[in-house]
């Protein structure tokens, strides 16, 4: 119904009060602080019709918080151990079903970050009875919603339908849980989608700041400090998803809540039938990690050149949900950072017009989570804003909230709590949360009363115990060139990262002991691929290669026609000339690269002046060239055939209808693996892929033709990190005559 909503929404201008327009950013040199000027003319006071009046409408005296009355709950267990909670509520003909499995981020192994999210996303992508499209259609026809997601603590599956279609949820949810097939093609799409989301994080300074704050606070050895990366998602294979699902998705590790207009008597039989096939099994132990300590402050600048606003996060350790100070903390945290105009952070930052948006909150989890204060301000105000936030945190730790603030916080917190119990799915979600955290129904009903019992002295005590003004981490995501002088002026020490740096350092799993059978299988595949390519003798006999090609290269959505000539003389001489033809540019752009042994040069237009220039290739550039020479597509099979080569067989994959066997070859460059996709029919290499700093790089090969007894791919597509190049090979010459001067460093023109 997206389009319905889209169209109608655009005709209804829905509003609350509007935020004030953003102030105009100051440019360097703006302002008149150093100009001698006459004293400002006193403005006549603006007439205010309300000041001094006694007849304004005052807010009502707060009512004492009362328990929430909720419908009765019926509890039972299915024969396989699944705990079921039923809340009958027939005020509307709606049924909601929510299943929670205690399998979330906190249970993930470090080497498989993101597996809970990927598994949840895959639950709606195919079962033994329905493929992804059929599942989507089934819920579409019923006019309902079905969704699966994973949180820090659990995987949640929810389904809501009209009561007359309740059967759709009762059939589909158990099917998704017990009969998921995790099809490869869907997994590939989902992985790409998740990687796309992660890439967009680079454009979202707020999300980036929150991720860095968790990482800086909890460190690299605690699950809360681990942040997904493109590399971690790319590393998750179907086997990992299947293993995760098999280990954690057992009835004894789950709970089911059914709410709404249900026939409670009939329900148990229906659930026994549909969930009955869910096999039982042991529940794996939940991993635990030693909590890191925090002494002193740590500040991290995440440099995002061109970022106009700086996003600031100040984080400390929070409390567990069962901490006796939980409700006291809820109150002082509200006073500090509810985001309302009267909250302390907003008041502190509104002064001088820094911002009117600032919040502070803490995680409510089974284990201790984080306390985080957040805002975003003009970069020129970043240090000032951070100082004021620290000041407010220190003041809260020292003085705590006032009587009046505690009263206002209780009224708002207790009042807003009731808003969460309006739909049948709301009630179900609240019950799932309470049960996951080991609380019961009474916790939910008595929540407002517990908030109402908070005393000023207790809230002050909790603030002074939990907030430590001297031990915190601070993250600033903004333009470092403008941030660093401010931090230096404050005398703050900091570390600096680029916004594109991986937040959690990638780790390698310990290598599995070599499996002789698997290695033999890999060698057989390589031998078959070499035979299909033209045979070992032919490949070993090649001394030089020259290819020319035309095609297009697309970078960030801009496509440019390109012509390429490439010469490779074994073992280490290479020359590439690329002519780019930008559509509206007056001239072609020619870029050349020459390498010989451990020297290299590059010729092309100077990025600043456009004038031709020649530069040496050194350092990281030369390392890239080494890698390119090593993975030369025409010869890489010989590297794989070397008896010392480290090989592994990966599970087969199907791409665009073709089935590939996959052999991974360990390169000598930073333990990078290059995966060779061998077409199971032709035995020719259809793809070479490797991961570069978290980015998947793929080279695809098609339309093989015979040149002198060796098969060469005439269609080549190279994709990775927002760039794609498609080439049609025009000529291939084996052992051409090559002028040695071709590799010598030329003059600029």
């Amino acid at each position, binding site marked *: *119904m997206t389009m319905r909503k889209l169209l109608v929404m*655009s*005709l209804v201008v829905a509003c609350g*009060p509007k935020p004030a327009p953003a102030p105009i950013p100051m440019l360097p040199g703006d302002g008149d602080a150093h100009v001698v000027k006459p004293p400002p003319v006193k403005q006549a006071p603006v007439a205010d*019709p309300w000041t001094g009046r006694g007849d*304004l409408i005052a807010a009502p005296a707060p009512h004492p918080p009362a328990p929430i009355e909720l419908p009765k709950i019926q509890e039972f267990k299915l024969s396989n151990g699944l705990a079921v909670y039923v809340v009958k509520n027939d005020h509307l003909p*709606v049924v909601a079903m929510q299943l929670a499995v205690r399998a979330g981020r906190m249970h993930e192994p470090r080497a498989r970050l993101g597996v809970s999210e990927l598994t949840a996303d895959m639950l709606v992508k195919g079962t033994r009875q329905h493929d992804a499209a059929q599942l989507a259609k089934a819920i579409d026809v019923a006019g309902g919603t079905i969704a699966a997601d994973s949180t820090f603590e659990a995987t949640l599956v929810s389904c809501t339908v009209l009561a*007359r279609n309740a059967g759709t949820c009762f059939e589909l949810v158990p099917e998704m849980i017990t009969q998921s097939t995790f099809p490869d093609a869907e997994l590939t799409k989902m992985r790409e989608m998740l990687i796309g989301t992660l890439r967009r994080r680079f454009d979202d300074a707020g999300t980036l700041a929150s991720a860095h704050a968790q990482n800086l606070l909890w460190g690299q050895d605690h699950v809360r400090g681990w942040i997904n990366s493109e590399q971690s998602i790319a590393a998750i294979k179907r086997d990992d998803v299947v293993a995760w699902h098999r280990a954690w998705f057992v009835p004894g590790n789950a709970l089911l809540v059914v709410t709404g207009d249900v026939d409670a008597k009939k329900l148990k039989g229906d659930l026994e039938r549909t969930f009955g096939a869910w096999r039982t099994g042991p529940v794996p132990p939940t991993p635990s990690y030693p909590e890191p300590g925090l002494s002193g402050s740590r500040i991290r600048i995440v440099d995002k050149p061109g970022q106009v606003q700086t996003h600031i996060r100040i984080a400390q350790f929070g409390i567990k949900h069962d901490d006796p100070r939980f409700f006291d903390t809820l109150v002082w945290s509200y006073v500090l950072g509810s985001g309302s105009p009267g909250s302390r952070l907003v008041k502190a930052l509104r002064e001088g017009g820094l911002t009117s948006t600032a919040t502070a909150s803490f995680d409510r989890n089974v284990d201790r989570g984080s306390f985080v204060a957040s805002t975003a301000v003009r970069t020129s105000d970043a240090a000032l804003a951070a100082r004021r936030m620290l000041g407010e945190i220190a003041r809260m730790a020292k003085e705590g909230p006032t009587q009046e603030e505690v009263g206002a916080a209780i009224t708002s917190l207790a*009042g807003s709590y009731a808003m969460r119990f309006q739909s049948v799915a709301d009630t179900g979600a609240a019950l799932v949360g309470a049960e996951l955290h080991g609380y019961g129904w009474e916790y939910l009903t008595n929540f407002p009363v517990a908030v109402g019992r908070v005393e000023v002295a207790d809230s002050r005590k909790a603030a002074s115990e939990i907030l430590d003004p001297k031990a915190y981490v601070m993250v600033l995501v903004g333009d470092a060139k403008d941030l660093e002088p401010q931090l230096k002026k404050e005398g703050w020490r900091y570390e600096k990262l680029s916004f594109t740096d991986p937040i959690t350092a990638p780790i390698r799993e310990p290598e599995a002991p070599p499996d002789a059978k698997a290695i033999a299988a890999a060698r057989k595949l390589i031998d078959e691929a070499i035979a299909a390519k033209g045979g070992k003798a032919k490949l070993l006999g090649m001394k030089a290669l020259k290819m020319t090609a035309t095609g297009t290269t697309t970078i960030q959505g801009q496509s440019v026609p390109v012509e390429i000539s490439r010469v490779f003389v074994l073992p280490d001489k290479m020359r590439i000339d690329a002519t780019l033809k930008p559509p509206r540019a007056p001239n072609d752009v020619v870029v050349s690269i020459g390498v010989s042994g451990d020297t290299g040069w590059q010729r092309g237009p100077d990025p600043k002046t456009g004038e031709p220039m020649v530069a040496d290739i050194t350092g990281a550039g030369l390392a890239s060239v080494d890698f390119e020479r090593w993975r030369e597509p025409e010869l890489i099979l010989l590297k794989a055939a070397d008896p010392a080569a480290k090989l592994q067989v990966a599970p087969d994959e199907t791409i665009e209808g073709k089935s590939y066997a996959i052999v991974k070859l360990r390169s000598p460059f930073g333990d990078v693996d290059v995966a060779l996709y061998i077409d199971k029919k032709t035995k020719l290499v259809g793809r070479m892929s490797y991961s570069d700093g978290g980015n998947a790089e793929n080279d695809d090969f098609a339309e093989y033709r015979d040149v002198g007894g060796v098969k060469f791919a005439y269609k080549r597509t190279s994709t990775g990190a927002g760039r794609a190049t498609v080439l049609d090979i025009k000529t291939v010459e084996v052992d051409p005559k090559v002028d040695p001067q071709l590799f010598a460093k030329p003059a600029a023109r």
Partner: protein
Amino acid sequence: MIGKLPAIETFALPNGLQVAVVHRETAPVVSVQVWYHVGSKDERRDRRGTAHMFEHMMFKGTAHVRPDAHTQSINGLGGYVSAATDEDATHYANTLPAEYLEYAVKLEAERMRNLLFRAPMIDAQREVLLEELREQSASPLAKGLEGCLWVAYQKHPYAWTASGNAKDLAAITAEDLKRFYDAYYEPNNALLVVVGKVAAADVKASADKWFGGIAKANEPPRPAAVAQEPPESARRREVAEPGQIGMTLVGWHIPAARNKDIYALQLASVVLGAGDSSRLKLRLKTADPKTGRSLAFEAGMDAIVREDPGMAIALGAYSDPAQADAVEAAIFDEVGKLATRGTTGDELRRAKNQLQSSLVFSLESAQGLGEAIGRSWILTGNPGAFLRDIDEIDKVSAADVQRVARQYLSSDHATVVVFPPKAR
């Protein structure tokens, strides 16, 4: 019957204020809403945007409430406020703990007649609205829809939407606003809706106490009543300025909300253009197996049901200028097929489930139920009409859907507006 639905109690105050109450036991929450029967169709042609500007002004201070204090005090009690304006209505909603019912009623009564028109506030809100307009002009969908309505309505004020117009907004004076307020923000032009864990007697007492003292006013002017849209006798087609993306919109005039054919027309729109398995989405978004390309990257259809005759609008969005004609032809072809061959049982079942569930799901929250009541009153004069709608949708047959497609969605009197994509 789909199942149990809420019971609505209605009454009126002597000054003409209509009141609708639903008592619910679900959560200790109440939604207090006032629906004013005034929208952009009541604006002067040279003051487009007045109704929306009004909605903003209503938060910016009255005789006894400081600017923004209404919102802040409701938030302070744990509640929230919202407001919205469309062609037919403007409404204000306060959702808060049920024990503060009377306070919300008092605040709404206060702003019904005691709004202050202060120049700095008017100018500030004018700027906010102009900024909203600028943001909206960046949305191809909103721009496309505005363009389509402007061509489709030659006489009726549905030619423009509630967003307004920059030139007109700049011209609005405090006197214009005051006139508008006195004409439409009156008890006899409003419905007070109260939904939640409250007793009807308490609602009546609060309404009497705070709204009862407001005098009844004259009947408000209805400019749209004398600007009825003549039937469209031929196809209208316009090619607009190129946009960032290509978009072709095809619109048809449909009857007003009170007409019974509206149910079948809504179902026809869902069959054609809502959900991934709808006909237009399948036809326009599915890639051709030979070329690997689809005609459009987005497609859909919606029946915009209004107090006066509204529109059904289908659209396709694409990036290749060469696709424009094919997209238009495909839309007419799919709509034509529905008119000539009708719908399948599966499609109709899907459409009914989707329409009914989106309506029933929206009734789960106090605010959603209040809004369904308010909208029903605006569209039909009956606050409980939506309850009947849920059953009426069930009664529609495949033959009805085919008949309305033939009767109303003919290619001969459609409005076509094409926004070609800018050449890249």
